[in-house]
């Protein structure tokens, strides 16, 4: 039976019709073989637009539908659904992208119209050869993996656990808490970071639905939406969690000191350690890399003093496998390597600190017990806070790190409060966009903090005047005064740029995510789906997607949790029907396809001596189809005939 094709050309208001002569496109389509109906309409995706498609399927007995509108990545699901509602198999629908690929990128109306006609003809050529497919429905494993135990991961894990679904929360360091646990106060409310975070951390540890795995890392991810198989490496702790009472004696007795990661290297921890006093879990681990016993075979002091006998020298890494339906990646942010910021004195002058170092300095559990002092123990009389160090800077990171303006204000307030020092903020623009943020800025203006509109060019200790002698000097051009200033200070705090985690590239590959040019993980849609990724079932939470402050991070975590929960609650998911299929009559069992399948979906059947495809593992990439030398594998929905027909129709040759 000859196909009966309906073609619907969308104006998209003036988005398409402003450049492309949509009527001409529809008229051209009406003249092509097998096209029995062609029309144009203002908004095809609107209710009336979809109604037109449904009505025409019934009225004109259409067996194929082509909608020429925006990108299929946008509205293919919409129109597939409309087709299905009118009784047409959704895979008999084809979309022609005449907006993103035509009207929006061309100005010459004639050329754009001719191109639009070519694009629609290409889609019609494919539509003619489309075959109905049945989407397969598979069940969803009711468990969610949350990767990263910062506040985003904590929020997501708690929301899902509270909804009654099991969560595996994996954190690579000893404790959950993330960057938020390192902070002293939070802007703009100045409430104590630990005070609001630690209760949530404890909730995580105690929640019956959360399986907390710290000191662990995700090693591999297989499977697909609803049915992931995840391998998690649980690093050896050398402390038996069931026996340990968290008494902390070992922490005192261990003779080996190493720089504390949690304190940004400003304090030391022991080889047996917990990241910080309120760590969750509170039971320590032994860091094998630095432990004297593991190095020399001697010491075991922790064991000697451990009353409950919880030390286990024979502990080994274990790899556990978890089946989960959804994954939330909440791996957080890193900071730009400050050693690349020598012009601002970092690494050269001891009293030049990063923001996070200052957080620890200011923290009651930090190196000075919360006193703000210079390295020599003196109280600074003047402090400069340099904004946009590495951010909004083409030499480093082009983006705005979003949190610096506000934490700079917070620092200024805290420094004033504790030391009465003069505080200078060197800024490009003040970006105080959140709830209560602008108000906080106004408050600081009245607290006598000095704001200099100009990016600091460099920090030096080369004094030019007596006044500068013995101080650090910040040089900047004040754009309000129109002159270059040299400001002598005792301490410099760099609001250094937020950056993707160092291993973001490997993590992106592990979970099949993309990264945007800034290196952060790429969301599915920047506005409507900032918490989804291009891989179904893998969601994003927090600053691994882009720099975020705490309220945004928490909201993002909750959003990822609710998206994951909607998948879990639905219980089933439709998986790709457009997969590969072996034509056993032509397959000679050369096994070449086995080598090229990224998923190991192909295997050689010993009895039939031909290749076999595991349909639920195949993701439909088509690599085997293009590789098969015998033409013995068909790629459903992207078969050779369909693609060749598209090439043939791409131009009026």
């Amino acid at each position: 039976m000859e196909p009966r094709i309906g073609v619907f050309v969308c104006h998209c208001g003036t988005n398409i019709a402003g450049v492309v002569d949509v009527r001409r496109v529809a008229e051209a389509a009406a003249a092509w073989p097998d096209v029995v109906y062609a029309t144009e309409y203002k908004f095809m995706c609107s209710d009336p637009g979809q109604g037109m498609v449904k009505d025409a399927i019934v009225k004109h007995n259409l067996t194929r539908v082509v909608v020429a509108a925006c990108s299929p990545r946008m509205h293919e699901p919409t129109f597939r659904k409309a087709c299905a509602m009118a009784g047409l198999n959704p895979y008999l629908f084809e979309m022609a992208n005449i907006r993103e690929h035509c009207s929006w990128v061309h100005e010459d109306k004639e050329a754009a119209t001719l191109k639009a006609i070519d694009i629609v003809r290409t889609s019609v050529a494919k539509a003619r050869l489309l075959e109905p497919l049945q989407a397969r429905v598979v069940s969803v494993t009711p468990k969610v993996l949350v990767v990263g135990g910062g506040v985003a991961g904590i929020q997501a894990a708690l929301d899902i656990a509270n909804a009654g679904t099991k969560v595996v929360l994996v954190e690579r360091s000893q404790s959950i808490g993330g960057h938020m646990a390192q902070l002293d106060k939070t802007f703009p409310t100045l409430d104590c970071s630990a005070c609001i975070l630690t209760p949530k951390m404890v909730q995580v540890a105690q929640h019956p639905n959360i399986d907390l795995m710290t000191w662990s890392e995700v090693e591999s991810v297989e499977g697909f939406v609803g049915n992931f198989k995840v391998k998690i490496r649980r690093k050896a702790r050398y402390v038996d969690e069931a026996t340990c009472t968290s008494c902390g004696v070992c922490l005192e007795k261990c003779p080996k000191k190493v720089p504390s990661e949690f304190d940004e290297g400003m304090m030391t921890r022991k080889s047996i350690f917990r990241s910080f006093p309120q760590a969750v879990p509170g039971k320590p681990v032994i860091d094998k890399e630095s432990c004297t016993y593991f190095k020399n075979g001697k010491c075991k002091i922790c064991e000697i003093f451990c009353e409950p006998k919880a030390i286990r020298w024979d502990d080994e890494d274990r790899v556990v496998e978890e089946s989960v339906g959804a994954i939330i990646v909440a791996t957080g942010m890193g900071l730009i390597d400050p050693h690349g910021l020598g012009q601002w004195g970092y690494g050269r002058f001891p009293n030049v600190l990063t923001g996070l170092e200052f957080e620890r300095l200011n923290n009651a559990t930090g190196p000075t017990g919360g006193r703000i002092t210079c390295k020599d123990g003196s109280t600074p009389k003047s402090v400069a806070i340099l904004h946009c160090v590495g951010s909004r800077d083409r030499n480093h990171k082009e983006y705005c790190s979003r949190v610096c303006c506000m934490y700079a204000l917070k620092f200024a307030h805290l420094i004033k409060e504790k030391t009465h020092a003069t505080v200078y903020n060197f800024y490009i623009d003040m970006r105080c966009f959140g709830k209560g943020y602008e108000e906080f800025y106004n408050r600081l203006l009245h607290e006598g903090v000095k704001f200099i509109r100009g990016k600091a060019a460099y920090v030096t200790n080369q004094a030019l005047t007596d006044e500068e002698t013995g101080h650090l000097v910040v040089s900047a051009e004040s754009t309000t005064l129109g002159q270059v200033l040299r400001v002598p200070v005792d301490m410099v705090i760099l609001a250094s740029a937020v950056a993707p985690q160092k291993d973001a590239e490997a993590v992106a590959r592990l979970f099949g995510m993309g990264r945007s040019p800034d290196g952060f993980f790429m969301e599915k849609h920047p506005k409507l789906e900032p918490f989804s990724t291009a891989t179904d079932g893998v969601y994003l939470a927090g600053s691994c997607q882009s720099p975020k402050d705490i309220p945004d991070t928490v909201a993002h975590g909750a959003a990822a949790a609710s998206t994951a929960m909607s998948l879990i609650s639905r219980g089933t998911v439709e998986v790709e029907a457009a997969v590969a299929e072996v034509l056993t009559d032509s397959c000679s069992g050369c096994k070449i396809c086995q080598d090229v399948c990224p998923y190991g979906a192909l295997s050689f059947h010993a009895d039939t001596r031909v290749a076999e495809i595991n349909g639920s593992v195949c993701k439909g990439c088509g690599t085997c189809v293009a590789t098969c030398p015998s033409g013995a594998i068909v790629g459903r929905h992207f078969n050779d005939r369909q693609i060749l027909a598209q090439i043939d129709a791409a131009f009026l040759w």
Partner: protein
Amino acid sequence: MGEELKAPKKIQLAMYWAASCGGCDMAVLDVNEKILDIAAVADIRLWPIAMDYKYKDIEKWADGEIDVCLFNGAVRNSEQLHLARLLRQKSKVMVAFGSCASFGGIPGLANLHCKKTIFEAVYGYTASTVNPEGTTPQTHTHVPEGDLHIPEFFDDVYSLAQVIPVEYYVPGCPPTPETVMTAVNAIATGNLPPVGSTIGISKAVCDECKRTKSDKPGIVEFHRPQEIFVDAEKCLLEQGLTCMGSATRGGCGSLCPGVNMPCRGCYGPMPNSLDVGADALSAMTSIVDAAEEGDARAKVGKMVDPLGTFYRFTLPVSMLRRAARPLQG
């Protein structure tokens, strides 16, 4: 098999050769004593390699007088084209016999060039040519004794089906005796596949190959057969030889791989193939052990003459059919 070949009336059989080496005719003899079976069911009306015939003998036949014509060789000049058309007219069933008739074969590789460049080479600059006057063949030459004619040399090499309608294809360079007997049996018993079919199997040479293949075949480096000691057990492709077996229709019994030579692809493309060269190229290079561009370039670059390797027998029937002629000429 002899019993099965008893037909009530003898088949009127013609065999002809065009641009070919004669191997296809030898292949008919290679059936050995079974030639008697063929003789039992068929009257061989034309077979230039064995018996002398004149054009006028053929012209005298009635249209359709020949039941089956086995035509081997490609069509490269006007005489071959003329005979192809004449035999088409006289035959009920036309069979493209062998790789040259089916796909253009080895002579088809001349489509990388054109008449002009071939003449320039053959009558011009090759090492063994002495031709100071630059004489090239002319279709008409007047000599005192009269006019001499020789066939016109075409710019292209054609497969048989590119010049006349063909009912069946029997591939092979040459077709193996088994392939020949399969074809003869099919014809004798009338047990023929749909018109346009290739008489043979639909699986690739790999299916008949006895060599062991690993589950993840990969190519570390490409070699030519003379460069390595070939492992007699292991898949040739995995040893880096550009074996066409996975992309080539079987039916030969995997003869070449059986004697440590990579398949050359003489049985032509698989039934669903879009382009046999593209098929083979894609399969062989996709499994090259290279993860980045420079490495891929270095390793794939060691493959000598991809076009000649992948289209050794099939260039005229491939997607691109021939190399582009110079832009203006």
